[in-house]
């Protein structure tokens, strides 16, 4: 098997000090390969969101190591982590978290524009292609408030892909959608995953969603309770 996209070893995350200290993740060992479509399962409070947040370099682990694309992200400075996140990681949140003052096209462009300090024609073209790909070619100029929940979440998926990330972390991406919209979004993720090398790690409670993933891992009380091997 080739070098994993990311590798986590003996990862632990605690919050608070002394008697108030709470350990949310402990002894996590995990490898994800390029192009994987993996479901992260577990009940509420099992540490799924915390793990995603650490993998997304938004949070530092208390101990253990986290390496992605050959970069030791536990030792990196905050600026380096921000730059790494911008270039290699995309996010899809349960609540779309689009910027309300920007149009769909501008929201999709945002990760690239924030990096370059301006919007370019190339960014516009790429963002338009992504909106076409998620079936929202006719909603480019719409603001989030003028779109349905499913449409917003599809814009969020397009935004996550803007910088051609190696990894997309999706935290309950369909948790706020009706069944039809949830299926549409999942079909979209499935198609993008099949067409590109992008690895998706999707945190979900939804059996329908996890069934459409090619690998499942499960967290229980902050430990990896089940980790299927990467499909051949």
């Amino acid at each position, binding site marked *: 098997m080739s070098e994993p996209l990311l590798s986590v070893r003996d990862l632990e995350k605690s919050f608070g000090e002394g008697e108030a200290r709470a350990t949310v993740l402990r002894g996590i060992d995990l490898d994800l390969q390029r192009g994987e479509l993996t479901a992260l399962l577990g009940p509420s409070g099992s540490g799924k969101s915390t793990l995603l947040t650490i993998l997304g370099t938004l949070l530092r682990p208390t101990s253990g190591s986290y390496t992605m694309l050959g970069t030791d992200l536990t030792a990196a400075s905050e600026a380096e982590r921000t730059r790494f996140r911008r270039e290699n990681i995309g996010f899809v949140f349960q609540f779309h978290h689009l910027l309300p003052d920007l149009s769909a096209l501008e929201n999709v462009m945002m990760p690239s524009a*924030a990096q370059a300090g301006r919007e370019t024609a190339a960014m516009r073209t790429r963002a338009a292609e992504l909106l076409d790909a998620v079936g929202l070619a006719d909603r480019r100029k719409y603001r989030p408030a003028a779109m349905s929940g499913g449409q917003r979440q599809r814009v969020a998926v397009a935004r996550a892909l803007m910088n051609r990330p190696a990894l997309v972390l999706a935290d309950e991406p369909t948790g706020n959608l009706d069944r039809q919209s949830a299926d549409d979004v999942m079909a979209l993720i499935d198609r993008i995953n099949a067409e590109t090398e992008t690895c998706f790690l999707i945190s979900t409670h939804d059996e329908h969603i996890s069934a459409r993933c090619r690998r499942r891992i499960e967290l229980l009380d902050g430990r990896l309770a089940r980790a299927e091997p990467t499909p051949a």
Partner: protein
Amino acid sequence: MRYAAKIAIRHLLSSWGQTLLLAIGVALGVAVFIFMSALIGGLATLLTQRTVGSIPHVTLEMRDRDPRILADAESVQVVVQKDLSRREQIAIWQPFIPIIAGTRGVTGVSAQIRGSAFIERGQAVAPVGVTGVTPGNLSVIANIGAAIVEGSGDLPVDGILIGRILADDLGVRTGQVLRLVSDRGRERNFRIGGIFSLGIASADRQAVYMNFTAARALFDLPSGISRIEVKVAPVNDASRVADTLRRATGLKVTPWTEENAQLFEALDAQGRTGTIIKIFALITIIVGIASAMLLSIVRRRAEIGILRAMGAGKRLVTTIFVLEGTLIGATGAVGGAVIAWAALAPFPPVSEVAQGGLPIDRGQGQFLLAILLTTLAAALASILPARRAAGVDPVEAIGQ
């Protein structure tokens, strides 16, 4: 920067009601700043015009001479008194005139012969102070020409100008002849060429102007002059000009600030009061913008978190919020300047202010300074809130 500006403008436009209120608040502060500048400046101009305007700003005279001490000061107690044995005059004065006129800040020079005299008319005798000037220099110090209420300001050798009150006291009009007896015992008849009214009682009662040549004869000064009077602009430069002239001429040089110290202090205190009021207006703007920006950051916390999570650096977030504050400040400042400009427009120039009217000088409104200072203050006021925004933890902000 361009992207930060775009996001900042979108923020401001999306909550345009709050933006408008903030800009109005800034505009009112700026309008107060400009109004106070115009009022304080106008008041100073008015006071200066009505007081300092009619007096010399710098006066050059011969130095006082102490008598030579013949006795041995160690064995005898010596009392030195002012030497009054000789006339005080500037004997050689012509070379000084071009030097004085060429000094930076000097706007007018008048060589004068001055002396005391009595005007006799019938049984009436009035003491007067006579000033002999060349006809072309009549209005260099006090604008006598503009104050003529009867007759003309021409100064023929046999003509004099007298004040309105003196004319009334003596019951005379232009064209009548008066007899003057100088403190040198010389007597001569003069025809009243004009009557002036400066609005200063002492001058209108006792001042008499006559031709330079006639004054030479009347006061027995065949070649020297009594003093040289100088006008300076701006008047607050009088001390500096006096120092320069003292070094250049070696004469006794006195600026108006020395002889009118109380007025100078009053003008200075008034200026400082205006500065304090303007500083408070600026502080109000700074506090207003800083608190509004802090509120905006609380409201936009989730959006800041999204930007940070998507890879926006702290610098971009800081720039967005500093630009927001700066844009509010600049918009409010320009709006305030326009409001102030319109509000000050109906006021007449200071020189035409009626009794009891507000002496507003729109030219001293410091419009550009107010806009620049306010914009700068707004940018500075935004820095702390912006840094706080940049420090927002994206995980907390978006509730992950």
